[in-house]
């Protein structure tokens, strides 16, 4: 357990403390306010909010999240191997490490290309433009 992590711990604690600190101070300082009906409604450019904040079910957020997590995992897996690359280059066995990383990355790029070709990356699903290919 490096001592560095103690500093990190304290940083997180201090950062976490500032939020309630600030809000607390604000709550203490400001005058009491009477909640008015209109004031407490959800702000809709002054209009009266209609219906619950229903959002059209849209899946493309989720597609982005999937691709993100797969590539996030990829980066997390590649990093330790990448740290050994410099030492491998100096010791001459760079080929193997390069091959390993390349294979790892290439396969996932393949996945990306698949998504790209199948039109999953398009954010706006045009009716015609993205009729799924046969």
């Amino acid at each position, binding site marked *: 357990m490096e001592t560095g992590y103690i500093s990190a711990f304290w940083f997180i604690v201090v950062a976490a403390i500032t939020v309630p600190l600030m809000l607390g101070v604000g709550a203490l300082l400001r005058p009491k306010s009477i909640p008015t009906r209109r004031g407490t409604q959800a702000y809709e450019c002054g209009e009266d909010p209609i219906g619950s904040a229903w959002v059209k*079910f849209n899946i493309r957020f*989720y597609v982005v999240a*999937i691709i993100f997590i*797969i590539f*996030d*995992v990829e980066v*997390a*897996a590649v990093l330790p191997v990448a740290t050994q690359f410099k030492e491998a280059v100096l010791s001459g066995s760079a080929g193997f490490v390069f091959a390993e990383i390349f294979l790892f990355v290439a396969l996932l790029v393949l996945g990306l290309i698949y998504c790209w070709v199948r039109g999953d990356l398009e954010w706006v699903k045009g009716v015609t433009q993205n009729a799924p290919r046969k």
Partner: protein
Amino acid sequence: MNLLDFSNSIEGYLLVSSILLTLGIFSVLTRKNAIGILLGVELILNAAGINFVAFSKFHSAAIDGQMVTLFIILIAAAEAAVALAIILRFYRLKQTIDADEASLLRN
């Protein structure tokens, strides 16, 4: 304080992981919401991860335990992605993600 020593030794880790496992099982079994089941599964996976890391430090002082946890995390991520995709597909099919609804495969 034996509590401090306890929490720092392997028993602490094992206790945490077993509690996580129990809660995971409980959550998997009792959740009506499909995503709730998924949360339970994540808990169980993490419980296993903790065990591996704990044994890698306290028992064998070798990196292999942590490697297994690393792979657990990688695979759990992929699993979560696919599981949730299935749930969303199920949602689109039945407009609900109540686990009991998903019983097309019954007798």
